[in-house]
């Protein structure tokens, strides 16, 4: 708020009678009321359509115009009314529907073999109505980490527990790119307390349910709880992917999560961590060391030190192979703790089936008003979930910049939404478009090279 004299403010008001009253603050308005202006001025319709059309939106001769028309959308209208199997002719029709019906949530489903609107005609005949393609998706939710975070529970999210999500993003990104060879990966903030991941390579879209399930299992290490201790699918030696993940996680644990969550401060937390050590002797040794220090970081040092000492003793005392094994088991306790507290916990059900609906990017969360913005994996650690733009805030910005907005460009370019769209383009859409274009050109070349009856 600037400290202008009252007179000047009044003058401004007089000069721009079209502007809203100066005390209008959209952040105080119920989110549902804001959906109409959101879809008409802030939602990046063109960019979303460009993505989902996968190149079939232009006038290239090899374009498949029906591709977009076979995609299912599901609108959640005000009052939790689900409307499934919506499909649209093109981006304009989709935009018009959104502006008209203002859903509180949009879900994206698979691309079917026929238009979802006309599925009744095909069910029961031949192949029936079935999904043909669908992005590979992942959903990570902070609620699944409630047992290992101290800053809050359930829907809480803050800058202290965000590193857990950032770690998950990093590990998924590295695994999907290096191990599976995928390239077009989009991470999106889920609006309240988690992250979604969309893998949009053609190879990924064509995966079967069994293959999706296999990929999700490849990333699964946390297998639930047993008597207060996490069950982990970890052996004494690691698969190269797990070794790579662990290297990353250890740093995240020590630099951010342990100190910020204060994981070794209160009694309950300390007991929980001690439970991962293999026997009472080492537990007692560690507790004795802890009497002298109080910060989580120092206590962690002490724990690692004791474990290492014990491991070396085991190596020296027993016969070579048995001693080496016992030492490994001792050192594994440290690995177990780090993984139990930080390894990504995926929601397996979301990834397994081709027809699972998932919330679209750029939706607005009905409870928080936050926009589901894309996240740049390179800047995952720096992302702050508490300052994500909200629909109210964006509309406020629109108003104060209404002059700029009136220049014929999309209104959202004058707000923070432009940043979000920029991330969308730079991290994901541009590369995808380039590949899609190349794909169309290749199809054209092949069609031209194929023998025809033309003279």
């Amino acid at each position, binding site marked *: 708020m600037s400290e202008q004299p009252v007179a000047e403010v009044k003058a401004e008001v007089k000069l721009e009678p079209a502007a809203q009253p100066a005390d209008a603050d959209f952040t105080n308005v119920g989110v549902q009321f804001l959906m109409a202006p959101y879809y008409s001025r802030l939602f990046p319709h063109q960019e979303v359509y460009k993505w989902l059309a996968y190149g079939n939106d232009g006038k290239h001769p090899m374009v498949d115009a029906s591709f977009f028309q076979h995609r299912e959308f599901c609108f959640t209208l005000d009052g939790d009314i689900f409307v499934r199997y919506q499909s649209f002719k093109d981006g304009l029709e989709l935009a018009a529907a959104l502006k008209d019906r203002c859903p509180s949530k949009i879900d994206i489903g698979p691309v079917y073999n026929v238009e979802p609107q006309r599925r009744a005609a095909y069910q029961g005949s031949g192949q029936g109505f079935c999904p043909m393609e669908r992005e590979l998706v992942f959903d990570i939710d902070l609620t699944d980490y409630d047992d290992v975070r101290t800053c809050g529970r359930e829907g809480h999210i803050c800058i202290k527990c965000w590193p857990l999500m950032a770690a998950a993003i990093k590990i998924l990104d590295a695994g999907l790119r290096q191990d599976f060879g995928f390239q077009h990966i989009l991470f999106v903030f889920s609006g309240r307390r988690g992250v979604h991941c969309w893998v949009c390579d053609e190879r990924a879209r064509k995966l079967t349910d069994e293959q999706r399930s296999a990929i999700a299992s490849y990333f699964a290490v946390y297998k639930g709880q047993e008597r207060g201790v996490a069950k982990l699918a970890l052996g004494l*030696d690691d698969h190269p992917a797990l070794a790579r993940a662990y290297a990353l996680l250890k740093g995240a644990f020590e630099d951010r999560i342990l100190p910020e969550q204060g994981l070794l401060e209160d009694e309950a937390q300390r007991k929980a961590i001690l439970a991962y050590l293999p026997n009472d002797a080492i537990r007692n040794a560690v507790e004795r060391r802890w009497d002298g220090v109080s910060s989580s970081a120092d206590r962690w040092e002490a724990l690692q030190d004791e474990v290492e000492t014990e491991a070396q003793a085991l190596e020296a005392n027993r016969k070579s192979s048995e001693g080496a094994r016992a030492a490994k088991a001792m050192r594994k306790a440290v690995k177990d703790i780090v993984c139990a507290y930080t390894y990504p916990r995926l929601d397996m059900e979301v990834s397994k089936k081709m027809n699972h609906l998932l919330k679209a990017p750029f939706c607005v969360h009905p409870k928080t008003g936050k926009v589901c913005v894309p996240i740049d994996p390179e800047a995952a650690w720096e992302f702050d979930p508490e300052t994500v733009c909200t629909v109210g805030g964006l509309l406020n910005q629109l108003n104060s910049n209404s002059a700029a907005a009136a220049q014929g460009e999309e209104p959202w370019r004058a707000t923070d939404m432009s940043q979000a769209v920029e991330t969308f383009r730079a991290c994901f859409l541009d590369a995808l478009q380039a590949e899609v274009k190349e794909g169309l050109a290749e199809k054209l070349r092949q069609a031209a090279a194929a023998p025809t009856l033309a003279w």
Partner: protein
Amino acid sequence: MATFLAAGAVGGARKVLAEVQQPNRVHRSKVALSMYRDMPEGEIAIEEFERFAMDRLRVLKGVDDLKAKGFRVDQMQDKVIELYDKHMATAQREEKQRKDAVSHFVLRLAYCRTEDLRRWLISQECDLFKARFKDLPPRDQRVFMEANELPFRPLGRPDFEEVQEQLAQVLLSLGQAQQASALLNGKVPPESYYKVPFEQVPDLVASRRVYLQAGYAYVSKDQMSSLVVQPFRSALSKALVLTARRWAAVVAPAEADRLAPVVESLSQRYLGPDYSDAEKRGVAGTITARDIPVLSKSSFPLCMVSMQQALHDSHHLKHDGRMQLGLFLKGIGLPLEEAMCFWRTEMAAVAPGDKFDKQYAYNVRHNYGKEGNRKDYTPYTCAKIITSTPGVGQVHGCPYKTFSQESLRSALARLQVAPSNIEAAVGMAAAGNFQLACESAWEGKHGCACNTGINHPNQYFEESRKAIQAQQGPADPAAATVAAGGAAAAAAGPPKTPGPAAPAAAAAAAAAAGSGGGATTQLQDVLGGSSQQQPQPDSAPPAKVQRTD
């Protein structure tokens, strides 16, 4: 045997096979394993048609049994190879491939008709294929894949060296430290690994048993079997559907009296020893009515024990029960007079004197083929007994199927079966594996492993007698004759087919006539080595036979 090859029928079998398969170019494979794309060349004798198929069926049923017993695939590996070598052996090596192919195609005919049969065949054939593929050395595996145009190529040296460390790390993470160090020390050739798109090995990806890089999985040759079996499975599945269609449409009418009966009965065929004619087996006249209670406690299977018990307690059994028990007793060697005596005594309270003669004596004689159409009935096999359902007041059928868990437990306890085997048997019965449950009970009672599996109540009895002999030492000629009878009975062949059984029966008759001892070795010579099911006791030197009174 030769009489079966009527002039004009020569080559007929092959023609039939050709009409329902899709013959492609002739392919002489250098490797023992085949994808069965092509039909075998040359003539196939009808007798071979049947015999090869039954041998293969024994292997496949053996595979099925191993799975039902809960063996995992890696544990089964050696046993399956053993089974295969035992039943599918031939006199000459070249013949082995032909037998493999012929038997496979005949079984396709037999198992194509319903979805259940197809599923069963595909399941067992795929497991057999995987085991045999794993058994091949890496060089042969590569030859096999090239010959069958499977798109899997092993790694070249530069690719291999690039990922050598990571491959070793994966082996370590699977607990295979020795293989890991062998790999790092250069003792593993590059051809032991294949590079395939990860989509093709979802199970290996899910359990992190392979190294992944840029969308490719690096699969070791041992893991390749689950990959190679996929084209095999889908080819077989398609072929079976086609076969079914063409068999029904084209061939069945033409072959209605020659091959159709053989093919259609193969899937139900009882493959165990032949218990039809007690005389031929040399056990006739060895048991008396007085022996029955004793034998019942020591050697009868549960179904017969419970029927004999019920008969004794209520002095009556309904018709199906009388058939099942009566034929069983005939099979163990109870002669007609003794049988009459037995039934008359047991049923005296309910059917005294005249009433027995009027109502039941005829049936007893009928069972022995002395009345009516003089048909010599065969004792029921387990398969038949299991499918019969007793109604109210009836006690026939298979108790592992019909008894409640509690009744089963107490019945087995009364039979003095070891407690752990009782639990195992109850569990298997609950899972539907009734014959395996019976086998478990047999093992629990005799304290040793059952080598042959239980497919027939009389088999239970004979194995029991043999085991008891082995434990006591060969005691009396009656026992030795029973053993010899068992040896003769271990013939490959269905009941009532004159051909193959004839020489065996002749030899058995000669054996029974001679003294118990030399018979055993004579029989072994006659029947050859392939389908014998004789555990150790039989080959004990006959000189040990003693008379005890």
